[in-house]
């Protein structure tokens, strides 16, 4: 049965209205709705609708950023810092590689992944490949995601697979995205997947996690 407050939460998330989304979340909690249900029926539902809306043609970062920020507000409301986080679908390690300080795309992907139930370890921007590999070795992620706006990061991306394999991490899927990297093919970058948009990257992840389709 439809819950009007849950519908309000979904609408607020799609509108990127963080304050309204947090209010709806509080009201749902006060009404005794469990956190897991709020995530499933509210956050996940909004993400599915946003994914459908964000075809490549209609995709723009601002709308996704606003929805992502609203989702982060809801998650913080449900799981304040220091409390136990919900069960995740797996870990993803993200980075903008050394020499590239442009990390908007990475940050947008991070918000969507968290909203979709993944745990994200963010290595930040201007990140040396060695650091990314070290963190991947420690975290055992499903995948790593690298973004790049500058062509100068391409040689680093191409060497990533070999370096991962040397460290016996060759089983970890490598995704690439960002304005420049998406101009290249997965074969030429020697990665598993090149994402046209953040949602495109999430679809690939759902596929390899066995939790969705591609």
């Amino acid at each position: 049965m439809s819950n009007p407050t849950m519908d309000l939460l979904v609408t607020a998330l799609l509108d990127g209205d963080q304050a309204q989304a947090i209010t709806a979340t509080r009201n749902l909690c006060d009404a005794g709705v469990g956190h897991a249900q709020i995530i499933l029926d509210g956050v996940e539902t909004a993400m599915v609708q946003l994914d459908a809306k964000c075809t490549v043609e209609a995709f723009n970062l601002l709308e996704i950023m606003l929805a992502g920020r609203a989702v982060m507000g809801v998650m913080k409301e449900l799981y304040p810092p220091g409390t136990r986080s919900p069960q995740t679908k797996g870990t993803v390690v993200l980075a903008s590689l050394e020499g590239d300080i442009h990390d908007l795309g990475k940050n947008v992907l991070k918000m969507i992944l968290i909203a979709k139930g993944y745990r994200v370890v963010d290595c930040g921007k201007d990140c040396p490949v060695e650091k990314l590999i070290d963190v991947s070795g420690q975290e055992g992620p499903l995948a790593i995601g690298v973004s790049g706006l500058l062509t100068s990061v391409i040689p680093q991306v191409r060497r990533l697979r070999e370096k991962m394999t040397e460290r016996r991490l060759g089983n970890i899927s490598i995704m690439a995205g960002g304005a420049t990297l998406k101009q290249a093919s997965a074969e030429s970058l020697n990665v598993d997947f090149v994402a046209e948009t953040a949602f495109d990257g999430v679809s690939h992840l759902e596929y390899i996690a066995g939790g969705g389709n591609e």
Partner: protein
Amino acid sequence: MNSIERIKAAVNFEIPDRVPVIAQVFGHAATLAGIALGEYVQDGDLLARCQIQALERYDYDAVFALMDVNVETEAVGSNLIYRANQYPDVKSYAFSGDATVESLSVPDPHETARMPELLKAVRLLRQAVGDDVLVVGCVLGPMTLATQLLGIETALYLAIDEPEQFADLMNFATEVVIRFGVAQIEAGAHLPIVFDPSSSPAVIPRQFYREFVLPRLKRLFAAFKQTGAIANWLHIAGPTESILSSYPQAGVDIANFDYSVNPLEAQQAIPQTCLNGNIKSLSFIEKTPEAIAEESSGLLDWFADRGGFILSSGCEIPPESKPENVAAMVLATRK
């Protein structure tokens, strides 16, 4: 025809002796000359020499007095990191913390940061090529400058959370850009290209573009024309199909379209505006001269009947591009 006459013909939909070709060679000119990019973007004399050498090598129709996307924000007060073989990046933004727009002042292009070096490059290039080859200066679009003054995420959130404050910031950015662009024209640029990647529909919705960006583009293009720009050239990267039709009302005479935009859609969106594009930037690194020649030839075919076309890359030709690929694009217009 010389290059200027050829470009004017394309802009006016007249028949040029051949299709003009503009390779968007910026830092690639430094790479060709064996000069570190970090030096190239700080020295107007060096920049002009590298551009002239690249012109002599490739024989295309325009040279660029263009350093990078951080000239204006540095002049307003942002701190940059310079590295030997990369374009500089912003280390700390001019408009951060408790700063207000009122606390910022419009920089004097003749005195502030690297702006005088860029003006020097303009003067030297114009002295070298006169009115034979197009001398292109460069300013950021107000939207891109706003994001470079504040950081793109902070700027976009500000636009939604504090639209009036963001509008003030956009007005300030417009003043900076107009003053800098006018100074470039007065120094000898035939026009400043307006480089505005943050206005891409990949970044902001079309409604946002209409409300915040379009009116300010109109203002700056009007100012440039009034100062003597021979044409107004707008460069917004990414999937611009949904905003191209607004370009004529902004005062745009030359519209750049990126690799992801279908040439036919671009033509239909702005049937009476000269288009330039749209070979994928990465192709100049990864493809062969034969592939570039084929793509160039395909584009020339697309525009053969329509005219109003300048063969070009969709965005910057990256510094590490293969010279033979740039040459292949230029050569395609001579066949």
